[in-house]
């Protein structure tokens, strides 16, 4: 909710420049304080966001929330010793205390040769790109002042569509519709001052199905940069119902090795593990199954993974990474070969190489290669398992060992036969990716990691016996 003296919601949304200017002033104040306090270098990020959410259950409003958050994070470097401090309270005296705390910490930390801002030449390229005024429009800002009542009404419509879609839908955990608008400013003492603004609208519906065997829960969701970009509430509700009732009557399967098809929501997680293992922090800690794997084959050669950070309207789009380095389109895996790591300025220095403009993570990664229609994928499986949900923390990035709880469907003669639960799937990630035998054309564009279904040739399934 609004802090005293700040803008109303309507003003904030209609005039983001005004709030951004406030954030700019706060960022400059923190950088000046850091320099005055003896820092050789400093970087700061300041954000302001506005969110509304309506939650309903069984046709009644369950919660209405309005949130306004601001935050500041500052890192200072003094003689390659660093200190970081953050605050959610942006009164001037607290900002000053925060910077002093960071400087105090830097007086006690030890020298780190890799510490510091990204190389001045790279920052200078970013500054020039901003100065020339030729930045591409990432198409991320589509504010709409939608009232809590309107959000609640949409949620009720969505949930009703789900409850009415199938007589086996017995209960609901609720529907929610929300939007968030975020403004942020990042700057550093090498002259970089970048801005980002984005909006996001979301809806989700969680339903409970029941039969004589018991209850099952599942959900559907959608999210978009524009409110009008969301699926209709009826569609999301009906999808949630379909996904829930198809799980009813689930049973276990015998223990043994089978081909495993990962549906897009879980396939995305598999690629996420590959990205984590290729990330600087895992590598310089020697805690990655991709240690020394640069230039090696990590997937069959028909597949590539491409990062497109400047994709218009993309879920992860950004012009600059968290170091202020300009992002660019580049492969991570090029025709099966690990083409690079995922590095920030810091992790690159630790590894004796150049940043890949991935401070803050990878942005809009998609799988590229021959994409197979879903019916052909099922036929290719023959007999095996379709995994639609995984559970638990059984992923070891150090050695690649993978063992997760799973739910999904048994596939027989190339067709979905019956639902499955209370089983595990296990393997080793390095071998699983090399055993990637097909990728589906059912790409889910809503995620930062954009993939369709992925077929792994063989994993161990544990169930009965």
């Amino acid at each position, binding site marked *: *909710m609004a802090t005293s003296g700040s803008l109303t919601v309507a003003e904030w949304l209609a005039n983001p420049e005004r709030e951004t200017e406030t954030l700019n002033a706060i960022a400059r104040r923190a950088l000046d304080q850091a320099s005055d306090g003896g820092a050789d270098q400093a970087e700061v990020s300041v954000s302001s966001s506005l969110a509304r959410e309506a939650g309903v259950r069984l046709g009644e409003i369950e919660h209405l929330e309005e949130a306004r958050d601001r935050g500041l994070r500052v890192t200072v470097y003094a003689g390659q010793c*660093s200190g970081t401090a953050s605050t959610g309270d942006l009164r001037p005296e607290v900002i000053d205390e925060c910077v002093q705390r960071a400087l105090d910490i830097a007086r006690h930390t030890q020298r780190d040769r890799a510490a510091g801002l990204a190389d001045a030449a790279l920052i200078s390229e970013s500054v020039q790109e901003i100065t020339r005024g030729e930045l591409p429009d990432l198409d991320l800002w589509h504010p709409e002042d939608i009232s809590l009542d309107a959000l609640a009404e949409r949620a009720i419509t969505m949930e009703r569509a789900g409850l009415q879609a199938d007589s086996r839908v017995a209960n609901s*955990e609720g529907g929610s519709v929300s939007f968030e608008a975020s403004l942020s400013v990042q700057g550093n003492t090498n002259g970089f001052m970048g801005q980002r603004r984005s909006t996001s609208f979301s809806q989700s519906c969680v339903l409970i199905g029941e039969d004589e065997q018991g209850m099952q829960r599942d959900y559907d969701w959608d999210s978009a940069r524009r409110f009008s970009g969301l699926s209709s509430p009826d569609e999301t509700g009906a999808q949630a119902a379909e996904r829930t009732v198809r799980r009813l009557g689930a049973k276990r399967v015998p223990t043994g090795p089978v081909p495993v098809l990962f549906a897009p929501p879980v396939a995305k997680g598999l690629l996420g593990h590959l990205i984590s293992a290729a990330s600087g922090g895992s590598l310089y800690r020697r805690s990655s199954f991709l240690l020394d794997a640069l230039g090696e084959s990590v997937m069959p050669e028909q597949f590539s993974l491409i990062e497109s950070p400047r994709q218009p309207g993309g879920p992860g789009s950004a012009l600059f990474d968290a170091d202020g380095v300009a992002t660019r389109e580049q492969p991570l895996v090029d025709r099966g070969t690990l083409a690079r790591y995922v590095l920030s300025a810091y992790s690159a220095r630790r590894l004796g190489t150049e940043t890949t403009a991935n401070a803050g993570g990878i942005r809009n990664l998609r799988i590229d290669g021959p994409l197979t229609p879903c019916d052909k994928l099922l036929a290719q499986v023959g007999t095996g398992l379709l995994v639609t949900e995984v559970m*638990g923390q059984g992923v070891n990035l*150090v050695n690649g060992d993978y063992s997760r709880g799973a739910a999904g469907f048994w596939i027989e003669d190339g067709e979905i036969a019956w639902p499955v639960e209370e089983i595990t799937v*296990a393997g080793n990630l390095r071998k699983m990716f090399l055993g990637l035998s097909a990728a589906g054309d059912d790409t889910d564009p809503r995620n930062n990691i954009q993939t369709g279904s992925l077929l792994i040739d063989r994993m161990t399934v544990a169930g009965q016996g």
Partner: protein
Amino acid sequence: MFELARSQLLDPTGLDQSDIESTISRLAGGAVDFGELYFQRRVREAWSLEDGAVKNGSWDVDQGVGVRAIAGAGTGFAYADAITLPALIDAADSARAISRQVSQGQVRLAPAIQTPERYISVDPTSEGRSADRVELLRTIDAYVRSLDARVSQVSVNIAGSHEAILIAASDGTLAGDVRPLVRLDIRVLMEDGDRREQGFSGGGGRYRLSDLMTADFWQPQAREAVRQAEVNLRAEDAPAGHMTVVLGPGWPGVLLHEAIGHGLEGDFNRKGISAFSNRLGEAVASPECTIVDDGTLADRRGSLAIDDEGTPAGSTTLIENGKLVGYMQDKLNARLMGVEPTGNGRRESFAHLPMPRMTNTYMLPGQHDPGDILASVEDGIYAVNFNGGQVDITSGKFVFAASEAYRVKNGKVGAPIKGATLIGNGPDVLTRVGMVGNDLALDNGVGVCGKEGQSVPVGVGQPTLRIDGLTVGGTH
């Protein structure tokens, strides 16, 4: 304690009790059944060592007030990061939008409740000197490296936080608490030829940072992290299939947290969406099992003097001799189910809504010697450490991932096996408990529980348990 919380939260802002009463009165009129203000200030500090040097330190402060208004089962919620009267009134007007009727109530707060003394009200973030924290981390690093030449990476983190909360509500509640929380984590990577494996140990609770900084505390943690990594270097592939599983004492109690605990939280049961809904009085475990959620233990990570709604923390028996006897409640769900709150209303911060959450969840000891339990196993595994778990409260299916486990054959503990996920069904897993040990232990204080995007510190514990049939997710 209340006075201390008030002096830290309200005195610097100039707000007094009449401002709070008038805001709650504004909030709680008409169809609003309940209105509440939750003030919080939290300071966190952390230092970390890796690669032989303390390269990072961080400090964070967050404060604000969360305002909620409840009408029936509906909640209006807003918060402000400035603790001022205009901000309070704005937030109250926003939260009150849950009810269409606008009328003003008249609320008088009761005298502040006496906060039970469950932990000291020390501020770990302003205790001692930064230089000593840095020196400690370097000493631990050197000690760990001296234990085994195969140690290639050591990371050590030390963190402290200090939190003051004050709750005022239209039911007259006025309560405050000041909570310390400290934690030390040691992570080790060992390399031997082509193999690389990790070991982890850590602990903490609601006490002084200096309590973590004694060799008596950290040396056993350091040795444990190295021991685990060494065991994992020798681990063979885990078996796959349904088999007998013996769980060690202490942290493996994460089983109870996932398989039983979440399913017994009041919100899921009021809505009828838990696999345990409407099953009070039924047998859901072997008669040897009695399980409690106990927030009243001294100094524990999951302990509370009062919960985040001002209800004194309690000790709630969930399962008694195998029979389901209780759920964990916050005020909203207790009222809607017609029962009393149990002191389990918790929230991550002023910017989050409270809900029923666990505190310290554990099983009481049984009669068996742990050695006899292992000796009784013909063919199975013995799992002594875990990474954490997850549950689907509706289907009841839960998982937890072993990080240290051994093969057991003919009553003998054999070779270590690689980490594997265990999966089971909450409502029936404890009916297959064959033996309960006499060696109840609580975990060291590292638990974090996530629910609907909110994290809170928790504790778990149990004696050695034999479960006659659980699915083990190995590779052969």
